[in-house]
């Protein structure tokens, strides 16, 4: 299996390409693959995909993209090229399940199957900014929920009463975040509960600094290392992935998503992109968890209410089935919504997602 060092070297030495050329090349490739593999919403308008061949075709289209087009490294402007054999070898190397946490708080994360009796994994995230006084208490409250399997980190704008601005403060804030997380889970009586660091920002120093067995991140904890939209990766993330791989902590891809209306094109392209970026998380960072699905770019352009779209649910089910049928990847879906906060469509959308996520064999986040 290709090592992360080999990936880092290819990101440094691969063929050079202008970012705009990559973006438009992605669009052309996704269009061609969508047509070639027939990744289209069926005429009978199902909510969930019930056609195994659709999932298989979408997976094959994603592999073809990775082999023919590759992965773009934003920092170097170079393409990481891979052969089919290398990709399939990497996929075979994915763990079937993964233990996070320590002692009595160890939790096993694995793929779910329909009609499985085990409980869903619940992994709350706290990506909204909290004050430093509230942070450990918020973590404590969530850690007290017995079904919580690990906690994702918090964001904040001040530490020790000072604004987080500039690398020294960012590094310090990263260390403080990890220690607040540890304090919070300890206060809840679950000191072994795994925490996943939500990086203060994306500089390698800021992502590596919180590693510390006693008061920071342990090898049983994790970090969010996400693939960027449009199948792009970045050197600070690769650097961090190499350090974390040696340390032993788990890594999480927060962007296994395709964006309908983005450079991937329409719904079919978004499904293929979602599978590609999910696989990229494992290939380039060794992420063992991924949350994703299919999102609408128009939701990013406007703050108007956007009702849940059944085609997005169908598309996400194709993404999930493709990965479950061909890999061991442990994938999640968020119960977040596209709709504006507090509106009726948001409540409907959240309810719809809460029902649909287990139906797609997925786990909550």
């Amino acid at each position, binding site marked *: 299996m290709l090592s992360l060092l080999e990936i880092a070297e290819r990101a440094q030495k691969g063929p050079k390409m202008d970012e705009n050329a990559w973006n438009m090349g992605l669009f052309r490739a996704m269009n061609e693959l969508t047509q070639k593999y027939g990744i289209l919403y069926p005429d009978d308008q199902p909510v969930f995909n019930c056609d195994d061949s659709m999932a298989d075709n979408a997976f094959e289209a994603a592999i073809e993209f990775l082999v023919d087009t590759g992965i773009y490294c934003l920092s170097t402007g170079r393409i990481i090229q891979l052969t089919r054999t290398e990709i399939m070898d990497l996929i075979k190397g994915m763990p079937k399940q993964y233990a996070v946490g320590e002692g009595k708080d160890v939790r096993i994360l694995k793929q779910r199957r329909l009609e499985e009796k085990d409980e869903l994994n619940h992994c709350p995230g706290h990506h909204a900014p909290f004050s430093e006084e509230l942070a450990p208490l918020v973590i404590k409250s969530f850690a007290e929920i017995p079904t919580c399997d690990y906690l994702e980190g918090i964001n904040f704008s001040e530490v020790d009463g000072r604004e987080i601005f500039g690398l020294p403060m960012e590094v310090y804030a990263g260390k403080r975040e990890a220690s607040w997380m540890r304090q919070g889970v300890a206060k809840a009586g679950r000191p072994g509960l795994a925490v996943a660091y939500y990086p203060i920002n994306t500089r390698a120093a800021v992502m590596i600094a919180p590693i510390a067995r006693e008061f920071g991140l342990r090898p049983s904890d994790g970090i969010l290392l996400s693939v960027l939209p449009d199948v792009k990766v970045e050197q600070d993330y690769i650097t961090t992935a190499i350090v974390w791989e040696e340390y032993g902590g788990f890594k999480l891809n927060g962007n296994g998503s395709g964006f309908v*209306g*983005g450079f991937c094109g329409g719904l079919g392209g978004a499904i293929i992109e979602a599978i590609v970026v999910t696989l990229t998380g494992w290939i380039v960072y060794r992420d063992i968890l991924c949350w994703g699905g299919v999102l609408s770019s128009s939701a990013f*352009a406007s703050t108007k209410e956007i009702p849940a779209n059944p085609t997005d649910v169908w598309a996400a089910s194709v993404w999930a089935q493709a990965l479950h049928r061909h890999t061991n990847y442990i994938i999640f879906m968020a119960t977040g919504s596209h709709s504006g906060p507090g509106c009726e469509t948001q409540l409907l959308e959240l309810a719809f997602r809460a029902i649909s996520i287990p139906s797609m064999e997925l786990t909550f986040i």
Partner: protein
Amino acid sequence: MTNGENQGALENLKDAILQYDTEAAKAAAQKVVDQKIDPKIAINEGVLSASTILHERFERGECFIPHLVMAGDAMEAAGYILEASIPKEQITSKKVVVIGTVEADLHSVGKNIVAMFFRSGGFEVHDLGVNVKASSFISKATDTNADIIALSSLLTTTRPYMREVIEELESVGLRDKFKVIVGGGPITREWAQEIGADGYGTDAYEGIEVAKQILGISGN
């Protein structure tokens, strides 16, 4: 030429842009010039009116970001031909936008959409990408004689880098030369006021309108 023929030429120009066809847009623009239609009218009715339709299509999910890129290419190509036929003393230069995601932040989706909206709205756009230092924004804005510097951030902890751009502009005596607008997930109107930005958009649509307002450009 009859009014009907002139109107037909303008429609052809708009259609070429709406079909994302650069070559057809160039041919249609040349025909407009050959028919001696006022190029300023052609820019407004043939080129810029297409942008309103494109933004509506995008909102309805009928076209995608790459379509906005291709339409922008077609608009630029047609624009060069039309502008070349305007007497020098009557040329009003294009408004220039320098856009990017601030230092230490790699988020690009929202910024890309805003950049494409600007471009298909007839602006000259210089997209510096993500993780852009204050000095790079200022250097590019100076080199391109920009009208607007547009800053994006998706992290609470990278918002201060927006303020840094404004403070650096002040320190080098260039604050009055450029309008600064800000946007992104954690950005609020209050934050924009606090750091002394000239404008703020809650989303891409509002961002473009705010930019037009502060530059004194009437909407389509």
